[in-house]
């Protein structure tokens, strides 16, 4: 390939794969925790549904639309939290998400990369605020 000035490194095959074939796509019936948010500047939108048993995320589904970065990041995130304890998920930070993505994200696109994490945290915060 020719010189894509870093763009082919950003839009790697696995990012495009997660964008076009998102893992855990869809919604859950009667989720234990759920939240939807959008990035009002660009209109990226993500909803996340969680099934939680004894403090463990048994299942997770997400539904969204938006750029490859936001959708791939959310897809990767859902893969990484399945079977994890809520306490472990609480400890997930921005750095972890970016490391998982494995690409360098410019400041302008950081919000896209982190939208999934934001929605996940809010879903959990809402659930445990209720209890």
């Amino acid at each position, binding site marked *: *390939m020719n010189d*894509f*000035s*870093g*763009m*082919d490194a*950003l*839009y790697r095959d696995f990012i*495009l794969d997660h964008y*076009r074939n998102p893992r855990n796509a869809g919604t859950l019936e009667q989720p234990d925790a759920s939240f939807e948010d959008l990035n009002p*500047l*660009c*209109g*990226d939108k993500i909803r996340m549904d969680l099934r939680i048993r004894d403090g463990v995320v048994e299942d997770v589904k997400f539904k969204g*639309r*938006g*750029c*490859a*970065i936001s959708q791939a990041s959310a897809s990767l995130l859902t893969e990484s939290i399945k079977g994890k304890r809520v306490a472990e998920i609480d400890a997930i930070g921005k750095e972890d998400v970016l490391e998982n993505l494995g690409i360098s994200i*410019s400041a*302008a*696109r950081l919000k*896209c990369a982190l939208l999934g994490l934001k929605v996940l945290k809010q879903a959990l915060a809402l659930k445990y605020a209720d209890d």
Partner: protein
Amino acid sequence: MALAPSSTPMLTQTDVARIRSEFPILKERPHGKPLVFLDSAASSQKPIQVIDAMDDYYRRYHANIHRGVYHISELATEAYEEARRKIARFIGAPEAEECIYVRNATEGINLVAYSWGRTNIRRGDAIVVTEMEHHSNLVPWQILAQQTGASLRFVRVTDDGMLDLHDLDRLLDGAKLFAFTAVSNTLGTVNDVAFLSARARAAGAVSVVDACQAVPRMPVDVAAWGSDFVAFSAHKMLGPTGVGIIWGRRELLEAMPPFMAGGGMIGVVRLESSTYAGIPARFEAGTPAIAEAVGFGVAVDYLTAIGMDRIHRYELELAAYALERLRKMKNVVVYGPGIEHRTGVISLTVGDIHAHDLATILDSEGICVRAGHHCNQPLMERLDVPATARASFYLYNTPAEVDALVAGIEKAKAIFKIA
């Protein structure tokens, strides 16, 4: 809007090269590539004349206006008022006093919504807006309707991005106000402002025109339009940020209460009550953006010297070339009407590439486009697109930059493995 034949010569490559040399920012090299600035519809770049005039003001004659009796305050006042006269001439305003300085078009529209709206709109009244409005010309009317108990009616948009006018007179029947854009900032659609203003007047409604995308790119004559209020921003027409104009017919403005209160807008002030200054001072409370007004005046000089007619035709020529090239590309969808109904604002999508990703890839080539909903969410929903990339052309752009855009889109397609 047809490509009207005109006696004035076209902008030549030499003209455009000279114009480009007067915009310092065009020498920048983002990511080591020449800057290809295709986002003038969001905010245009500034020629050195405008930058210098503001610098000169601060260096030589900065002082508050309409206050000091000393020399430099007089100079500042004169420059501020001279700019107002230039802007008034530029848009065909019968009187300079009808041009009220505001921060931007958004503030101008809000001024009308608060001052005229809250005086004249009552419960049960109807306000008509269109489905293609920028949020700036929609949300103020929503709030006015909520607060007064008025209702909103909408002129819809056709599939090809034009106003659907088949039931306009029914929508306007009994309406008090009709707010519409002269040019769509997302689709580039050019509306027939004179026609729409005349229909509004015939129905007894006041017309409020969002001219943000018209005043920068085509000859505008507000008197010939026959509108009641017209709003636009300096920063989209080579001027600085922080200043814009709401033009209104004198008899309407004079019957309106102040929008904001404070220094500079009063007649006699007593502790319990005050009388208000005449126009434009009544609507310019507090110390205004003086340097910006001066810069705005010079921007208008710059555009006038080239000629809005020529700028308009040049932009249409670039848009026609861009449309021709883009429409030939596989997997590229261009939104909006044909060239005969539009200006140099082009919204597009490429395959399943999200507009943001497209804009990021174009940015890596030094190409600046806008990506998203363009403050036009209802229109995007109407067209059923989540987001588009928007390229907009202005007098300093070139056919070579259209080629760069096309090459950038090809690159994006290659990265996303799209045919």
